[in-house]
């Protein structure tokens, strides 16, 4: 039982990281029909930003420095994402396959640029020692960092919810996910919403990257790509364009992966991809999503 609790919370923590990557992917796809293969590169950018900041700018290992580095990572991810949208995606308006291809190319370019700049070996990022503490729940011990992932993801989820529910841009995004053309036919420049979803998607991915350096104890050139596949799986299971669906799917994917992997190393990854195939075949639109075309 104790081990189950530990594994479960670890799984939810991993799911929280997946959520941070997947939330943006889901909104971007839902609104723009662009499957963004460069999203992993945004995450990696955030991770390297954290490494740089906590190694060269404020290497005191304090919680404050760590918190600042999270913010910076988010901003770096967001800037990268907005640049991607403005420089590449925008000019391929309505050419959805080409948009996806360009992001494939960008992911490729970014991964090799990281390799050229930072080398193959992961760079170690040490989080503040406090994060190594464990919390006792019943008889089980769980690392504090897990709760940090969950907390950050919960804040992002809440902020997303408030933004979508109570702001005009949120209204435009929700309407655009349903019927982009009709939004423009009401006199709204929907492309501003495109830039905006790239911004928030990039921000969440950058944050995810910063936290992933703690989860993986460092950052290498392909950190983002290893998360990207599971984030894709999360998005598709949750339903393209649905942030709540993404959150549920993220927890499902994270816990399944961790629990099964505990019993047979590697089998969890395998089971998760089969889970995706299963969900898509039974419910092609995912748990809560719009119909995938």
């Amino acid at each position, binding site marked *: 039982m104790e081990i189950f609790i530990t594994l479960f919370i670890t799984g939810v923590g991993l799911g929280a990281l997946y959520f941070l990557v997947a939330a943006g992917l889901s909104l971007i796809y839902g609104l723009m029909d662009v499957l963004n293969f460069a999203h992993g590169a945004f995450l990696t950018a955030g991770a390297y930003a954290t490494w740089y900041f906590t190694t060269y700018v404020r290497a005191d290992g304090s919680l404050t420095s760590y918190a600042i580095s999270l913010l910076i990572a988010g901003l770096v991810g967001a800037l990268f994402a907005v640049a991607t949208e403005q420089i590449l995606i925008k000019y391929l308006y309505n050419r959805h396959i080409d948009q996806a291809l360009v992001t494939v190319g960008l992911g490729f370019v970014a991964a090799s640029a990281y390799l050229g700049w930072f080398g193959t070996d992961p760079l170690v990022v040490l989080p503040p020692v406090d994060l190594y503490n464990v919390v006792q729940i019943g008889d089980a011990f769980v690392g504090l960092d897990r709760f940090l992932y969950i907390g950050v993801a919960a804040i992002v989820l809440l902020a997303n919810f408030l933004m979508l529910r109570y702001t005009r841009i949120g*209204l*435009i995004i929700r309407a655009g996910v349903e019927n982009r053309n009709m939004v*423009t036919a009401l006199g709204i420049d929907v492309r501003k919403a495109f830039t905006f979803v790239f911004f928030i998607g990039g921000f969440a991915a950058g944050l995810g990257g910063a936290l992933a350096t703690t989860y993986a104890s460092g950052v290498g050139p392909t950190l983002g790509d290893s998360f990207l596949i599971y984030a894709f799986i999360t998005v598709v299971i949750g339903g393209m364009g649905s942030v709540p669906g993404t959150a549920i799917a993220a927890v499902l994917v994270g816990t399944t992966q961790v629990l099964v992997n505990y019993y047979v190393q590697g089998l969890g990854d395998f089971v998760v991809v089969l889970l995706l195939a299963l969900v898509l075949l039974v419910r092609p639109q995912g748990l809560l999503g719009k119909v995938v075309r």
Partner: protein
Amino acid sequence: MNLEVTQEKALELSDVHVTIRGSHILQGVNFGIEPGVVTGLLGRNGVGKSTTLRSIVGLVPRVGSIKLFGKEISNLKAHEVIRSGVSFVPEDREIFSTLTVLENLKLAERDKQPNYDIVYNLFPELLKRKNQRAGTLSGGQQQMVAIARALLNNSNLLLVDEPTKGLAPRLVTEVADALEVAAKSATILLVEQNLPLVKRIAKNIIVMDQGVVVHSGSPMDLENADFAQRMLGVSGGSH
């Protein structure tokens, strides 16, 4: 001198072509509509009426000249066309089914002071149901939302595509009343299959066939059964 000739048209299309995925749907559409009145755009199914409206809004790629009160709008993006004072009620309503009624209306706000009074006076039902998800409304109520979105702002031009399609007779009357109210302050281009309704509110009619305009005249023309049969494939002439 005839006043009609010199008067500026509210909307003027010259040689408008639309090609979608290889099919040449509009093949040189030409017509002008008078300001301040309702013009009916008629024709059989599939002749390109909806596509004509969508080309005016800019929802389909189009070639040719489209002038709104003398200003060329064919080079504008859809949202810019709408922002120059055009409101569009699409075929099949296209309301946002996951948003509430009020959210649908809010999204459509363009003016500083959107006219909620007019809208709620015409359709009290919408006020009652403002927090209901639009997807759960009946077809008639959804049409009210679609029309309300257009009436919320002051427009120079209202494009309305088959607003009574699939509605019960009682609702047809309600929609007609709403259009008449709207007609007091805006020019309307109305695509409509319901001929009695067209006769009631339209001053002019335009008939299309196979991607071009084949006739323009007055609704009186529809009294001629032979004309209606030939142009629209319906037995018109009755009230």
